[in-house]
């Protein structure tokens, strides 16, 4: 059987499976809460704001508000991708329903990547609604440019692939709770490392961040550097340089590595029959 056809069939089933899961309700809740938060936060620029007797221009408020708001929403999308992937492959393996599919003439790599695509599809659908809705409100109400919305959405999508593939790989060795903790703590730590890295870069470009934080920022997946690099264009006081392009290149390497690691780990895995 054609490998692409098998992939399409399995990915469609994995997507449907993702929508049927109880976690989908949590995803919907994040979506509604996130959009409500965006609706509330983007009202800020409609009035006038005075700081130390000086009236701030709406675009200045938008320049600070938009990146923070978009960053939070993107973090939620990355977390959803990781949480969905945490057992999207491991669950059918543990339940035993996977053996029926794996007894068919399809490679393990096809099945694993199709499960990844299914989980990612649900996360990206949620991301499109959340980031699209937030972006639209920011553009219409804060008057910020629309291009960074697409650039940041692309960075979030690539970051979601990294998070989901690594979470799925981890789920082959660890239990669901451990993987969920790993995803959430990992995302917090990477966000912190990327934030410290960017802040240092902007304030003191000559000084590098050391230790584990510096190593994660320099060599780890630049999940938030890429997003920040895109949305920093909204703030006229910040010059992100080529942070976005560099971060996207490194994210692409991490995404390819994550997928290869998943396939390699799954090929080694013994299946209960």
């Amino acid at each position, binding site marked *: 059987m054609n490998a692409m056809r098998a992939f399409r*069939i399995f990915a469609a*089933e994995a997507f449907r499976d993702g929508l049927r899961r109880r976690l989908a309700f949590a995803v919907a809740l994040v979506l509604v809460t996130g959009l409500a938060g965006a609706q509330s936060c983007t009202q800020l620029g409609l009035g006038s704001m005075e700081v130390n007797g000086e009236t701030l221009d709406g675009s200045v408020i938008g320049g600070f508000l938009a990146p923070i708001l978009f960053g939070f929403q993107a973090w939620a999308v990355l977390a959803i991708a990781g949480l969905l992937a945490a057992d999207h492959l491991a669950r059918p393996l543990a339940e035993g329903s996977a053996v*029926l599919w794996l*007894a068919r003439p399809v490679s393990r790599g096809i099945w694993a990547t199709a499960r990844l695509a299914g989980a990612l599809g649900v996360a990206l659908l949620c991301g499109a609604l959340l980031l699209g809705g937030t972006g639209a409100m920011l553009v219409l109400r804060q008057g910020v440019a629309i291009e960074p919305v697409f650039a940041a959405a692309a960075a979030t999508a690539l970051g979601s692939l990294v998070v989901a593939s690594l979470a799925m790989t981890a789920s082959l060795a660890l239990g669901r709770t451990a993987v969920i903790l790993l995803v959430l703590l990992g995302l917090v730590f990477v966000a912190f490392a990327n934030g410290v890295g960017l802040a240092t870069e902007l304030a003191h470009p000559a000084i590098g961040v050391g230790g584990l934080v510096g190593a994660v920022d320099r060599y780890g997946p630049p999940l938030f550097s890429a997003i920040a690099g895109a949305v920093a264009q909204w703030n006229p006081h910040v010059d992100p340089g080529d942070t976005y392009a560099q971060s996207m290149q490194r994210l692409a390497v991490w995404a390819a590595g994550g997928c290869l690691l998943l396939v390699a780990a799954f090929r080694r895995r013994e*299946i*209960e029959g």
Partner: protein
Amino acid sequence: MFSLELAGASKRYGRRHALASVDLAVPQGTSVGLLGANGAGKTTALRLLLGFARPTRGAARLRGLDPFDAASRRGVGYLPERLRLPHGMTLQRFLHVHAALAGLDGADLVREIDAVTETTGVRDRLHEPVDGLSKGLAQRAGFAQALIGRPEVLLLDEPTSGLDPLGVRDARGWIESARARGATVLVSSHVLSEVERTCESVVILREGRIAASGALEALLQPGETLEDLFVRAVAGREAPGPLDQKTGREVPGPLDQEAGREAPGPQDGPGE
């Protein structure tokens, strides 16, 4: 070419040998019963043949290919012992996906689903979720997916599990039909009467090794049933004989006497 092959295949889990140097070669078009006590290595043998696990030593081949090669599973139908059907799929969708994976499409796919659901008696359940089917119906659904695409190799692990007597009779018919059209059938089962009726040869495993194998007619001694052969091969002694009225112990058979062994008393029990 053999449809199923294990060449000196061993499988170890930690210190435990699930299979130890097992040689098995099943020619195309034959039906073999894989027997053994619980934990004898039957399911492990199937897992090696399907590429679900790698042998620690030796090799497994499915249709002449490495089972880790997806092409080896082309034309293979499998019914697992622990059948777990996926959540939230209707039976129709479930069979549709399996038919597509078996290489069918268009009108052929629809015809095949009609045929297997008619054969296995689940046609009126097509729109029900598979995970909501009763044990017996789920087993029939499992059979339907295994038979889809008229597989040339059929691997069945405890195929009559959960089936009522009518279902057991039907299952026998499905296996015989597959044999009649030239499919290779490997049945792993504890139901010896079914194996005796559907298989022409048997392989009996004992603690991961082959204790007996060959054509049933060659293995069975005059007047012996498959159960007798099984006990002889697995327990290394004869089937339980009549009880001595005085002692309450089983009367030892000639094989037990040869081995200088007493038959177990009533309190000993047959064990696993």
